[in-house]
Structures are given as structure tokens and as C-alpha cells.
């Protein structure tokens, strides 16, 4: 192997792929039967963390950053004057296997710029996955990002070897897409999602009859949109992701805060900071829908089209709905316990389990690790009742004053705490 050349390619093609934020490697059911390499049946593992605090779970690279399209928000667009490189299929296979065997990664996340045409590109992505599975009996994780405009047959074949497929919707609104990605259109972006969804349904049906029918994207499909590149509202964003979750049964919709890569009057100026706080708030919102039984319109709607950047969306909801509080820790049902600011899913489960033995008091909740600095305004428990009645804005200020550090500088794109 020409190591220096591979090194150079890797640095270019990892750099170009890093704006795709998905790093999930969970949800597959590929077990290692017999004595082969790899197993993806458990939860995904973050093997390392970059200095920006993001999880490194997969070898995330582009096959090539040559591209015939010219999407304005993308570093790889045709008109951008950058170094180009392309991996050979076997090089990607080799890298994946060698990284995997050393326990560096959970698997591969492969995407690509479009060279020649969509099918030609997609074929090569599929070939990488096929070789890993069939020639090397590899059971590690594979995520392929599908190429817009590739044929249904190729999408289907990809589903046979990949654990997850993603189709990036790119921008939250149709008008945004038209403005920034002139070569793409909304309809052709959605079509592959439908193809994949059908494939998954067919597989599920077949599996009921024949246990051993070949797997089809066992970890489902996901999508991503860039936020902050056009002037969409959070309500727009949530509408789009809700649509995607519902219509195509997506496993995840990722948000990628726009990183300015080009100066153009259609785009935010070059030194605009990456909207990391907003991105984090959107993920928290996503969490509220998926794990906290909130409905989208409870969080954003015509009256509240944008998320509060200073406080998290759950707290924000609670402040707007103070009449629902205080909630009695010892008697309220799980659904309501989940809605208390400062109580996460794990804490809610603990509360519901522990109160079966005896009613809980304030001290016990504290020892159990409940974030009482926030929860204390919203709960009743044994021998405890919140001291004063607060009005929405006063309470908001009070919480902000005492939780300063919590809300100021420190944000993670996958922060799960409330």
C-alpha cells in the first residue's frame, strides 16, 4: 500500500464528510453467528471523542469529494476550488477492516460526492458494502448515505448490505432547497425514502413467514437537515421532521448547524458563528417527542415559532403551563413525572419504581440524583410543598439566576439532560 497517498486521501475525505452529524451505530441486530468478524447487536459504542466533544463511532468518509453538483452550502460543490481525491473500493474496505479489528470503530459511514452520475456513484458505495459483507464476512455496522437520483434497484441492493440508509433532506424548507441547491428538487429527494420504507416493510412481512430471510436495513433510515443556512423558523424545522418521522418512519432526523464555508449573498456571512445552541435546543425538542411523550405543537406552534435559546424546551413548556404544576411525585402517573423540569427519563423511572416501596421525601429525591435545583419549583413530595407561588417571568428569572453556568457556555449537540 502507498501509505502516504492513503493518508492524504483520508485527510481530505474525512474532512469533507465531517459535516454529516449522524454517528449512531445502534439499533442493528446483526449478530456474529459462527466465527466471523464483528457483531452489531448491542448499543453502539463511542470509541473516542473529538476536541469538539462529538462522538467518534464510525469511520465517516466520502468515497470521493468530486461532485458534478453545486449546492451552495457544501464544501464539495463543483465550483469550490479545493483539493479533490477519490478512494478505490478496496481501499475503503481495507481501512474499515483494519480499524474495526483494532477496536477503533463500530463500523463505516460512507457517503460521496456525485461523480459521472448518481447511479455510477451509488453502485460503488454498494460495492464497498457488498464486499465487506460477502467477501469478508464482516458484521460490523454499515451506514450508507444514498445518492439523490440513484435508481430504485440500487437503493434496494444497498438495503441488503447496510444496517442503516440515510437520505438527506438537506434543508428544512422547499424554498430553501430551491435557493441553495439548484440541482436538487424536493420530490426526488423524498422518493428514495419511500423506496427504502417499502423495502423495510416487505422484509418485515417476509420475516414473519421465513425466519431466515435476508436482512434489510435493520437499523432503519435516517435523514439530516442543515439549520441556520436559510431563514427558516424552528416551527418550520419541526414540521418537516415530524412529517419525515410520520410519513417514512425514520429512526432519526439529525440537525447540522450551518458552518459557513463560502461567502455568497444567499448565505449567512462567513464569520457567522455556528448555531450550536439552537441546534442543541432542536435536539432536546426531538428528545421530548421521542422519549418524553410530548406532542410537537406543545413545543412550537404559531404563537411560539422559535425555541427559547436561554432555557431548554421542557422548562419553557413548563413555564407556559404553570397551572399543571406542582406535580405530586408520589401519585402522579409516569407521563406527568416525565414533564417535570429537572427529571430525566432515568430519574422518572427510578421515582416510579422506588415509590412503590414507600412515599419519597425531598432528601431521598436529592440522594437519588434528581436535579432539584430546578424540580423544586414544580413538585410536591412527602413533607414538601414548593414555598411560593411564582408567576411565569419571575420564576424564569429565578431559575436563570441560579443556573447561570448550566445555561451559558456549555452545549453538546447530543445533550440529553433537561
Amino acid at each position: 500500500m502507498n501509505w502516504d497517498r492513503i493518508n492524504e486521501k483520508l485527510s481530505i475525505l474525512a474532512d469533507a464528510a465531517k459535516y454529516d452529524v449522524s454517528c449512531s451505530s445502534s439499533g442493528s441486530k446483526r449478530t456474529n453467528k459462527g466465527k466471523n468478524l464483528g457483531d452489531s447487536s448491542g448499543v453502539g459504542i463511542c470509541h473516542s471523542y473529538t476536541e469538539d466533544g462529538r462522538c467518534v463511532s464510525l469511520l465517516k468518509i466520502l468515497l470521493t469529494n468530486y461532485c458534478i453538483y453545486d449546492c451552495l452550502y457544501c464544501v464539495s460543490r463543483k465550483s469550490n476550488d479545493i483539493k479533490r481525491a477519490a478512494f478505490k473500493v478496496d481501499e475503503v474496505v481495507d481501512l474499515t477492516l483494519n480499524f474495526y479489528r483494532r477496536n477503533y470503530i463500530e463500523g463505516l459511514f460512507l457517503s460521496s460526492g456525485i461523480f459521472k452520475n448518481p447511479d455510477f456513484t451509488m453502485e460503488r458505495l454498494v460495492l464497498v458494502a457488498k464486499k465487506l459483507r460477502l467477501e469478508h464476512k464482516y458484521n460490523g455496522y454499515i451506514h450508507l448515505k444514498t445518492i439523490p437520483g440513484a435508481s430504485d434497484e440500487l437503493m434496494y441492493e444497498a438495503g441488503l448490505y447496510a444496517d442503516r440508509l440515510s437520505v438527506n433532506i438537506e434543508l428544512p424548507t422547499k424554498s430553501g432547497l430551491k435557493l441553495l441547491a439548484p440541482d436538487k428538487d424536493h420530490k426526488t429527494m423524498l422518493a428514495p425514502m419511500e423506496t427504502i420504507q417499502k423495502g423495510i416493510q416487505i422484509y418485515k412481512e417476509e420475516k414473519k413467514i421465513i425466519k431466515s430471510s435476508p436482512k434489510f436495513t435493520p437499523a432503519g433510515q435516517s435523514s439530516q437537515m442543515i439549520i441556520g443556512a436559510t431563514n427558516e423558523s424552528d416551527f418550520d424545522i419541526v414540521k418537516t421532521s415530524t412529517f419525515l418521522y410520520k410519513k417514512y418512519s425514520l429512526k432519526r432526523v439529525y440537525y447540522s448547524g450551518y458552518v459557513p464555508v463560502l461567502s455568497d449573498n444567499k448565505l449567512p456571512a462567513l464569520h457567522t458563528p455556528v448555531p450550536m445552541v439552537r441546534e442543541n435546543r432542536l435536539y432536546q425538542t426531538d428528545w421530548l417527542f421521542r422519549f418524553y411523550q410530548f406532542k410537537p405543537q406543545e413545543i412550537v406552534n404559531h404563537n411560539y415559532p422559535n425555541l427559547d435559546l436561554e432555557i431548554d424546551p421542557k422548562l419553557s413548556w413548563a413555564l407556559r403551563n404553570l397551572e399543571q404544576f406542582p406535580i405530586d411525585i408520589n401519585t402522579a402517573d409516569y407521563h406527568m413525572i416525565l414533564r417535570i423540569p429537572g427529571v430525566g427519563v432515568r430519574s422518572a423511572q427510578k421515582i416510579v419504581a422506588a415509590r412503590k416501596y414507600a412515599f419519597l421525601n425531598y432528601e431521598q429525591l436529592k440522594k437519588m440524583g434528581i436535579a432539584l435545583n430546578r424540580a423544586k419549583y414544580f413538585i410536591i413530595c412527602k413533607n414538601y410543598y414548593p414555598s411560593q407561588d411564582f408567576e411565569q417571568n419571575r420564576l424564569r428569572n429565578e431559575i436563570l439566576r441560579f443556573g447561570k453556568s448550566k445555561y451559558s457556555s456549555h452545549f453538546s449537540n447530543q445533550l440529553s439532560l433537561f
Partner: protein
Amino acid sequence: MIYLIYDNTFEGFLTAVYDVYELKLEKVAIRKSNLEIPQLFGETIDVVTDKNKAKRVADKLILILGKQSFQSLLKVLLSELETIEDSILNFIRYTIKTNNNVFNDFGHPAVLKIQQTLKKLSRERHRMNAFVRFKLANDGLYYAFIEPDFDVLPLISSHFKSRYADQKWLIYDLKRNKGIFYDLNNVEVVKLEENTKRGAREGLDINLNTSEIEFQKLWKCYFKSTNIASRKNIKLHLQHIPKRYWKYLIEKN
């Protein structure tokens, strides 16, 4: 205070619990044999590990707690915390007294302590599943050194066995001087001789496969390139990978 000294095995511990009940000991502490016991403060009794006694305690606890909770309870011993046996004994006393599966009674201090320790153990297990970095030696062995906070080898063994079923590997805990070795069929516990421990470590590193250094370089290159500089957040970075783990992480050296 009476100190019951046991041989650091699960069975030894369960025997000690049996003795506590048999001898109706009230002011009692169970301690590992490798700990120094302050002679002034009490009497010490060496526990003679007894399979039958251990089994009777186990059966009783399984009856009340179920098998899974019972196993989790024993797992807590792997934390090696100095007085963890006392916490487990408290938990067992509470269980026997109430004759109830109290495993989720988070409001009770003994239960909370067990649950918190389990959580710490599980975090360390996750970290080792993540942070082990194999190097490839000339003879085809993939080997890694670790120094985990707790004795997690028994907890990670099956994960590595099912994942790397077609390669020989060795994960060696330098802190406890023992390792797990997979020979393509079984995983066994191995021990390098004390005086060759260092030698073995260096020896292995000399016999690296020729491509090994190249793949390490590629991995470092990848790690650097996948970072987004404009999102830099060192505080979060350190929270995820505390410095004490850096020693064996190729990308951090």
C-alpha cells in the same frame, strides 16, 4: 467490631455472609484478605470458604431477588471498594428482613449505594469496551493493555469474544496483573510473570506487525480530520475522555 476476612472470591464472600447469620454477629465487617486491618480495633476471623454455605446463601437470595438481581449484587464486588462488602451485607440484611425484592427501592440508603456502584461499574465497562486499542503483533495476535478503575475484565470478556471471534486477542490489565486471552475457541484468564510484565509489554511492542504503525498513523490522521475546529469544546471533550485514559489511546498520543 469483628472483621471477617475472606479470600476475595464470590464464594468466600457468600460464606462470610452465612457466618454472619450463623454466629448472629451484629457489629461485623467483611473485608478482603489483601487489606490491612487495624489490629487495635477488633477481632479478626478468617473465613473458610465453603461451597455448601455459599450455595445456601445464594439459594435464599435468588428465591427473594431473582437470579438477575442476585448476579448484579455479586457484580458489585468487582468495584473492589474497601468497604463495599458492608454495603452488600446491609442490602442483604434489608432483603432478608423484608423478605421482599428491594432491588429498586432507591429511597433506601443500602439499595441506593448498590445501584450507584453498579452504575459506576457499568460506566467503566462501557469505557473499556470503547477505549481498548488493539495492536497487531507479528504472530497475528491483537493485544491491548488497560488500567481500569475497577476489575472489569469479567464484564467485558463476552463482548470482545463475540465481536472478534476470528482473531486471536489479549487484553491485559496492568494494574491487576492479569489478562484475558482468546485463542479462537475460548477466553481464558492469563497472568504474565511479575518480573516479565514490563518485559512482555516491551517485547510485544518490538514484535509489531510491519503495517501496525501505518494504521496507527492513519487512525490519528482520521481523528484529526474529522474534528470541526469552529465547534471546539474542550470541556466536553475532557468530560467524555478523562485524562487518565489517554495513556493507551493512540489518537491522544
